[in-house]
C-alpha cells in the first residue's frame, strides 16, 4: 500500500512539475469582471507573470535552463553549413590541433557577426576533417559564408618609432612577421612561480624577423592581431634570439589555453571549402511549426476519442495518462534541452500514436482474462503482468533502431545528420516515456479510480 501511495504522489508531482516547465516564459493575465463598479475593482487584473528559468548551483556544478524550446534550423530558419578543411600543409600529428583552432576562430567570427547561438562542431571522417556550422535565424547567409570561409590571418604589429605607448590599437603597424612564421604556440609553466604562460615557437625565418622586431621594441609592446582583431599586446623586455619566446602575465590556465588556441589558428591556418549548405527561410520554418502543431493536436484528439469510445472508462484513464505523457515529454525537451527539428516533431507525433500501444496490449489482455471468468481486479493485475513480455519485445526493436539512427558514439561508418538524429532522439524519448506512462501511470490511475468505482456499485 505504501508504494502505491508513493506512486500516486510521484505521478502528481511529475505532472505538476512538467506543467510548470511547459508554461511559456511570459504569461499575460488580463481580465475585467468589475463591471466598472468600484467595490469590484479587485476583479480587474492586467499583469504579466514571468516564469523564471532554472539556475541551480550545487557546489561547483551549475545547472541552468531558460526552459525555452530549442528550434533547429528547419524550424527557426537559418543555415546549416559543412566545410572541409584542406590539411595538406599541416603535419599529420598536428591536424587535430589545427582543426580545433580553426573551429575556435570561426566561432569567434560568427559571434562577432552577431548570430546568436551558433553551433560549430568538428568531425573527422576517415582522412577528411570537417567543420559543421549551424546558424539558427541567420539572414544574410552569403556574407556569413564569406566570413567563415576566410583563412585565419595572424600577424605581429609594432608601434611607430616615435610612440612609446599605444593610445589605440589602430596605432600599431604591420611588421611583416605573420602566422606562417609562427611554428606553434603552447601552454608552458613558469619554472619559478608555476604560473601558466604561453610559449611561442618560431620557424627559422620567423626567429630572425622576431629577433629584429624585439630588438627595436625593447620596453614597448608588440601586438598580435588575428583577423585584424588584437589578441594580445605583451611588452618586450629584451631582444629575443633563437626563436623561442614566452608571454607571461597573470594568466589563469584557461586564459592561457584560449590564447594558445587563438595563436595556433594563425600558426596552423587551414583553408576550408564548403561542401554542403542548407538554408531555410524563416517563413517556411514558422509555417512548418504551426502546421505540425495543428496536425499533432488533431491527431491527439482522434486518438483520445478512439480510446475513450473503444475502451470506455479504461480508455479515458489511458487518455489521461496520454496527456501526462505529452506534458512530461515537452518538459523533458525543455530540460535536456532537445533541439527540435521537423523530423523530430514527426518522431514525437508518431510516439503519441505508439504511446497507447502498451495500454492497448494490456486492455486486450484484461478483456481476455475477464472472458475467462476472472474478476475485474484480478483481470487487471493479470493483464498488466502478462502483457509485459509483449510490450518489452515490441519496444526493444524500436529502441535498437533508434540507437542505430542516432549513432550516439559518432561512429564514422554511420550517418550523424541532424535531421535523422532529431527523429531518432524524440522517438527514443517517446518510447521510454510512454513505457513509463503506459504502465506505471495508467496502472496507478486504474488502481486508484477503478476500485472506487467498483465499490460504489
Amino acid at each position, binding site marked *: 500500500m505504501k508504494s502505491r501511495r508513493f506512486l500516486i504522489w510521484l505521478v502528481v508531482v511529475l505532472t505538476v512539475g512538467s506543467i510548470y516547465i511547459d508554461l511559456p516564459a511570459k504569461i499575460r493575465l488580463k481580465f475585467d469582471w468589475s463591471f466598472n463598479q468600484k467595490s469590484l475593482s479587485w476583479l480587474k487584473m492586467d499583469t504579466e507573470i514571468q516564469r523564471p528559468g532554472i539556475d541551480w548551483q550545487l557546489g561547483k556544478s551549475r545547472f541552468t535552463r531558460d526552459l525555452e524550446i530549442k528550434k533547429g534550423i528547419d524550424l527557426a530558419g537559418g543555415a546549416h553549413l559543412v566545410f572541409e578543411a584542406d590539411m595538406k600543409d599541416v603535419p599529420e600529428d598536428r591536424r587535430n590541433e589545427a582543426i580545433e583552432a580553426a573551429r575556435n576562430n570561426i566561432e569567434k567570427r560568427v559571434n562577432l557577426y552577431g548570430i546568436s547561438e551558433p553551433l560549430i562542431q568538428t568531425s573527422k*571522417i576517415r582522412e577528411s576533417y570537417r567543420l559543421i556550422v549551424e546558424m539558427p535565424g541567420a539572414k544574410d547567409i552569403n556574407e556569413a559564408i564569406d566570413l567563415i570561409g576566410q583563412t585565419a590571418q595572424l600577424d605581429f604589429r609594432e608601434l611607430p618609432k616615435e610612440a612609446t605607448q599605444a593610445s589605440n590599437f589602430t596605432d600599431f603597424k604591420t611588421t611583416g612577421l605573420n602566422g606562417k612564421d609562427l611554428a606553434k604556440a603552447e601552454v608552458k609553466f613558469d619554472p619559478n612561480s608555476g604560473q601558466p604562460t604561453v610559449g611561442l615557437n618560431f620557424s627559422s625565418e620567423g626567429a630572425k624577423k622576431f629577433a629584429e622586431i624585439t630588438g627595436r621594441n625593447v620596453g614597448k609592446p608588440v601586438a598580435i592581431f588575428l583577423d585584424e582583431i588584437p589578441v594580445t599586446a605583451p611588452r618586450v623586455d629584451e631582444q629575443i634570439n633563437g626563436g623561442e619566446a614566452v608571454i607571461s602575465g597573470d594568466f589563469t590556465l584557461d586564459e592561457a589555453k584560449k590564447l594558445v588556441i587563438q595563436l595556433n589558428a594563425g600558426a596552423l591556418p587551414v583553408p576550408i571549402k564548403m561542401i554542403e549548405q542548407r538554408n531555410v527561410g524563416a517563413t517556411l520554418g514558422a509555417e512548418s511549426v504551426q502546421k505540425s502543431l495543428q496536425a499533432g493536436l488533431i491527431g491527439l484528439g482522434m486518438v483520445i476519442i478512439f480510446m475513450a469510445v473503444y475502451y470506455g472508462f479504461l480508455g479515458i484513464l489511458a487518455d489521461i495518462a496520454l496527456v501526462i505523457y505529452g506534458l512530461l515529454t515537452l518538459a523533458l525537451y525543455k530540460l535536456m534541452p532537445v533541439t527540435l527539428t521537423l*523530423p523530430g516533431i514527426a518522431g514525437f507525433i508518431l510516439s503519441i500514436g505508439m504511446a497507447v500501444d502498451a495500454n492497448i*496490449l494490456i486492455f486486450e489482455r484484461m478483456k481476455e482474462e475477464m472472458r475467462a471468468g476472472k474478476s475485474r481486479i484480478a483481470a487487471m493485475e493479470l493483464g498488466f503482468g502478462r502483457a509485459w513480455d509483449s510490450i518489452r519485445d515490441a*519496444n526493444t526493436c524500436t529502441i535498437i533502431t533508434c540507437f542505430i539512427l542516432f549513432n550516439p558514439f559518432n561512429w564514422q561508418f554511420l550517418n550523424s545528420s541532424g535531421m535523422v538524429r532529431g527523429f531518432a532522439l524524440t522517438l527514443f524519448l517517446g518510447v521510454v516515456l510512454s513505457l513509463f506512462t503506459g504502465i506505471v501511470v495508467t496502472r496507478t490511475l486504474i488502481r486508484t479510480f477503478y476500485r472506487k468505482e467498483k465499490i460504489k456499485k
Partner: protein
Amino acid sequence: MINWMKFKWLYFLISALVIVPGVVSLLMFGLRPGIDFIGGSLLEYKFSSAIKVEDLQTSLTEKDFQVYSVQDSGNNTYLLRMPSLEKEKAAEVKSILSTKFNQAPEEIRFEVVGPTLGKELLTKTIIAIILGAGFILGFVGWRFKNAKFGMCAILAMFHDSFVMLGSFSLLGHFLGIEVDTLFVTALLTTLSFSVHDTVVVYDRIRESQKLFPKVSFESLANKAITETLSRSLNNSLTIIFMLIALLLLGGVTVKWFVAALLIGTVSGTYSSTFTAVPLLVLWENLAQRKKR
C-alpha cells in the same frame, strides 16, 4: 472461431498485387535518389505572382545552367533541382530570375550537397540498413530460438521493404518523388514496428502450443490471430491517425517522410498477421507432408 488460414492464398495474392508492380517498377525505373545521395542543389523560390514552370526552366537553361527539374509546390513557390552550385553561381541564378520575371523572388530553401559527401552518405546509409536489419534479425532469432519462426519473420520484413521501395519507385517515376535519408529513416522505423507486431502474434502461437500440444498448428494460428488482431489493428490505427493528420496538415518538408511511414505502417500491420502467420502455417504443413 474464424478460420483465417482458409484464405491464406488470398492473402498472398493481395501481397503479390501490391508488391509485383512495385518490384517491376524498381527493376525498370529504379529509385530516384535525392541530392542527399548524389549531390546537387535544391533551390526553392517564392514569387509574388504565378509564373510558368517552362519559362522558369528556359530562363536558366539559355544562360547555360543545367536544370534537372522544376516543380510547382503551390503558393507561387517553385522548387528547382540543379547540379551542385557554387555560392557565386547561386547568386547568379537568383539575379537571372529577378531580371527575367521583374520581381525579386524570396529564397525559401537553398541546399547544396557536394558529390563526394553524397557518395559517403550513401555508403553510411547502406551500413545503417544492414546493421539495423541485422540487429532486428538477431533479436528475432534470439527471441524464438527457432529457425522457422525467425525465417518467416524475416520474410515478412522483406515484404514490407519491398512494398515501401516499390511504392517509392512508382512515386519517383510518376510524381518525381525522391528518396533521401529521411526515407531510409522511415524504412528502418517501420521495419522495427512490423517486427514488433509479428513478435506479438508469434508469441501467442507459441504460448498456445505449450498449453494445447494436441491441437493442430493451423487452428492454433487461427486462435492467435483472433486474439491479437484487434490489438494489432487498434495500435496501428492510433499511429495511422497521427500520421494522416501530419500528412494532410503538416509541413511540406516532411510530407513524403510521413507518407513513407504511413505506407510502412499499413504494410507492416498487414504483413504481421497476413504474411508472417500464413507463411508459418504453410511451412508447417509442408513439413508435415514430408514426414508422412
